[in-house]
């Protein structure tokens, strides 16, 4: 067979088909990239428009946020503090419970339990967040008021706790994947040295899977930061710089909801605040992702 025969396609129709599929896949990939780029650009564009009217110094130093009032103030911190507070409360719930569930499922439960519990956990992740929001407002807050009489109807405590419950499946499911991926040979090594189940899980398997576990936590945190319905419904609409979990606050996402639902005219200053807040939110999750990437690489225990 001559060399040229090797270059000639065996079946020209098949070769063209391959080509079409490649182009289609490329287009699909391009669409998602362009959409993302488009979103980021419009965010940046409108944010620049905002900062041509409001100084970045005021944005970063003022402690009040009242763009919809006559006396407009544009300090972002009240919104940031509310987002951080509700997210932190959520993490206090989601990380320990999610990790315990993951360790239980991966290291303690037998196959049958694992096969029933994991799908149940994923159902929890499928509940619409608006349901969680009303659950926080109409069930958890009244319940908590029995113990904390000063608790406002709208507060970051209930919203944060319920958001934590919502995030348990994310931490549990992704951490469980990371724990289960640790090779069995490490379990055998640890058991062979006389470790208890608990010691194997905590001293060997968890450290070996730590990069995946951290990734699951960071993902849950960025979900908390971006979560909208629960905080909009249950945490209140009152921008104030506080870390008191019993009073109404307003997160970045709640503000975006409030303005989007209102009758803010297109192109006005209060319209542009949407983008400034949205951009801040974007920066938050962006930094979290970079941080997660860095942590995952730093802590990865390579096995094999």
């Amino acid at each position, binding site marked *: 067979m001559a060399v040229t025969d090797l270059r000639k396609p065996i079946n020209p129709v098949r070769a063209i088909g391959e080509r079409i599929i490649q182009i289609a896949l490329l287009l699909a990939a391009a669409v998602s990239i362009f959409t993302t780029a488009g979103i980021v650009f419009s965010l940046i564009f409108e944010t620049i428009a905002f900062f041509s009217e409001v100084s970045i110094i005021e944005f970063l130093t003022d402690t009040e946020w009242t763009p919809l009032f006559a006396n407009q103030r544009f300090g972002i911190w009240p919104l940031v503090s509310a987002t951080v507070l509700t997210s932190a409360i959520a993490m206090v719930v989601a990380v320990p419970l999610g990790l315990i569930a993951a360790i239980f499922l991966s290291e303690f439960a*037998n*196959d049958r339990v694992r096969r029933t519990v994991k799908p149940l956990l994923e159902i929890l992740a499928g509940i619409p967040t608006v349901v969680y929001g009303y659950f926080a407002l109409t069930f958890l807050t009244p319940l908590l008021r029995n113990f904390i009489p000063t608790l406002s109807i709208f507060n970051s405590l209930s919203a944060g706790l319920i958001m934590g419950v919502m995030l348990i499946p994310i931490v549990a499911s992704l951490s469980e994947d990371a724990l289960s991926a640790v*090779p069995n*040979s*490490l*379990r*055998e*090594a*640890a*058991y*062979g*040295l*006389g*470790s*208890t189940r608990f*010691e194997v899980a905590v*001293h*060997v398997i968890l*450290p*070996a899977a730590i990069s995946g576990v951290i990734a699951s936590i960071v993902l849950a945190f960025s979900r908390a930061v971006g979560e909208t319905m629960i905080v909009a419904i249950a945490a209140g609409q009152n921008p104030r710089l506080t870390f008191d979990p019993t009073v109404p606050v307003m997160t970045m996402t709640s503000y975006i909801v409030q303005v989007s639902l209102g009758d803010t005219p297109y192109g006005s200053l209060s319209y542009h605040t949407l983008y400034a807040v949205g951009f801040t939110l974007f920066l938050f999750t962006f930094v979290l992702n970079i941080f997660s990437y860095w942590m995952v690489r730093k802590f990865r*225990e*390579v*096995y*094999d």
Partner: protein
Amino acid sequence: MTIIHEMDRSNPNAIEARNMSVYYGSFRAVKNVNLAIEKNRITALIGPSGCGKSTVLRSFNRMNDLVASARVEGEILFHGENIYAPGVDPVNVRRRIGMVFQKPNPFPKSIYENVAYGPRINGWKLSKSQMDELVERSLRGAALWDEVKDKLNQNGLSLSGGQQQRLCIARALAVEPEVILMDEPCSALDPISTLKIEELMFELRQNYTIIIVTHNMQQASRASDYTAFFLMDSDRAGQLIEYGPTSQIFQNPKDERTEQYISGRFG
């Protein structure tokens, strides 16, 4: 079948299996094994693949408990006590009967932490200098100290395969077991690393009892004191065919099947 009582032994038994059968679900993998392991000797378990050598070995420190379907019948005596008796904690058994696996499996931690792991989880209250000493002693015991003493903080997985296996031996030594079970510890290693491990086993024999599974006839013949030959019967259940001093098994086997196996006619 068993000729243990005829053996001329200078040491007491380290482990003794009496009428041991092991099941995986309803499948009987090992049938009616009687095997007394002499203390401070190297005993090799040989036989064709699938005849239950690993199963027997893993029954000696209750590693089979980790397989949900596995079940052991009969008795395994350690210091005269049945390790399968109700109330015996397998964790305690494994602390005294250590194990080295076929594929080197160091933890993804530093060399130092690999060795220190066992003493730590055992709750030994050691000062930093005592721990340093124990780590050094264990690594020396595994003939690895000179190669790693300058890089104790490096990841154990950065070592070569042979070094990793010796690290696993050092890790097992650090908890000061009485018996060390080795399941084909050299099968993933090159010939030079293999010889190193064999030399090491000879050193360790002064202080430890070693039971080694091997598929390598030369290894069994040159590196063990006793050899136990297993074969499966028509139900695929492994049985102990012949057991005796290694020289006798290899030069003067009593059972025809043993002779066939060691002369390489099957398996």
